[in-house]
């Protein structure tokens, strides 16, 4: 299977958004490779420059897709995109790599193209208000959340606030949540809460990004309650495409309780996979 690895080249790439429009990302490189993770010398890396924040309004995944198909002429269903933040150096989240380093296939996240950009033909940026508003509102909701007492489980008010952010600002809200989690600007309790809410939204445009975020946190957070929050989020998302990451997570999990709950999520998603594929198999 053919694949692509994205690598980012600036500090601002800590804020990438796979639909690209909501980020401060100015320069990024896509390195094409095979599923083995090795670079393919015959296919040149591609670097895009973004001159202003809103210069490009099309999803990053779409750009990858278009370039990829142009270069390699691969039928769409064979494409798998691997995402990786090269410049992010916090050891708890992802290992650090230099730009252009070869990344082993199992150290990158693998998604089907369809799951990442089911809305490839459109971008919702025209429906959005200014980026700054999205960032500020997201930060405010999470600040309020962080300072609230989450003892009473399932504070509906905050659930609705976070869900509204996603619906209103799409990938940009997810991007900001992603940033706040990475930067440890909100406490673990609040992160756990937000991760759960991220899984409990029906919003197709951000589905891939939310799933990616939950998977990354599950694999790389050092906090058991945060990993557990990501696990709960993935169970709510109920997407069998998370199964490989969940299986990998359970192998490296150190908490017996989280391990037990990961197993429950895996079993749920396996059942979902079976139930979703059955009608398809029954088709003539």
């Amino acid at each position: 299977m053919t694949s692509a690895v994205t690598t980012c080249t600036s500090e601002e790439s800590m804020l990438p958004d796979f639909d690209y429009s909501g980020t401060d990302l100015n320069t990024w490189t896509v390195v094409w490779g095979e599923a083995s993770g090795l670079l393919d010398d015959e296919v040149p890396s591609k670097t895009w420059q973004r001159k202003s924040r809103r210069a490009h309004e099309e999803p990053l995944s779409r750009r990858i897709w278009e370039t990829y198909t142009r270069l390699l002429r691969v039928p769409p269903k064979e494409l798998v995109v691997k995402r990786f933040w090269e410049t992010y150096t916090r050891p708890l989240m992802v290992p650090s790599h230099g730009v252009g380093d070869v990344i082993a296939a199992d150290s990158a996240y693998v998604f089907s193209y369809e799951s990442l950009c089911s809305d490839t033909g459109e971008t919702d940026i025209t429906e959005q208000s200014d980026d700054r508003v999205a960032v500020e509102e997201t930060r405010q909701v999470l600040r309020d959340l962080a300072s609230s007492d989450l003892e009473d489980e399932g504070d509906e008010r905050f659930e609705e606030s976070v869900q509204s952010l996603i619906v209103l600002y799409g990938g940009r809200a997810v991007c900001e949540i992603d940033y706040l989690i990475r930067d440890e600007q909100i406490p673990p309790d609040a992160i756990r809460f937000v991760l759960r809410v991220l899984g409990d939204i029906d919003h197709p445009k951000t589905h891939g990004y939310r799933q990616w975020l939950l998977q990354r946190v599950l694999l790389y957070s050092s906090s058991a309650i945060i990993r557990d929050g990501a696990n709960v989020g993935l169970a709510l998302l109920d997407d069998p495409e998370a199964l490989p990451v969940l299986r990998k997570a359970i192998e490296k999990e150190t908490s017996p309780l989280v391990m037990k709950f990961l197993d429950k999520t895996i079993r749920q998603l396996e059942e979902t996979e079976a139930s979703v594929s059955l009608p398809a198999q029954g088709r003539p």
Partner: protein
Amino acid sequence: MFRYLRKVDLKPWLEAEATPEWLGEEAIPADPVCSFRTRKNTMSVFTLDDDARNVGRIAAALTVSCGQVREFEYIILDSTDVDSAAIVTRQTEGDTADAEVNGLHRDLEQISAQKLVTLTTLVLNKNLHEVCDRILAKDVAVQILKGVSDGSLTNVSPKIIQKAEQLVGRAAQRS
């Protein structure tokens, strides 16, 4: 010996798996104690049947009562531990939306701080992954819809039913 189900937030128990350095050798962290959340020195529990087959039904009943469809987290208490902590057990009618579940309700009464610490210590000394458990939201939703369908759950709000249907049908809707 009976086993009782106590609904809790499992976060403090997850944290208790890793003993913090500041904690003395025989001390226990406070948060799991507080997670039992007594009211009027009393704690509500539900009696589990032999192989805990009724957990799902209890979860559905309590979830509907809470007004939000979400994961159901609980701890299993052994009656021997409750007795060891000198906590009094009394059968009282529950106030959930499921009459049969209401019959499983017990009040653990006359709980002093010391008794609660004793009980928590007994639980913490067990393998937490054997006594702490969670029913995922989708499974809770399935149980709720089943309860509504067979009539065991009554007075369930349309909002709860809608949310349960959303959780059960999420993957199918996406595909």
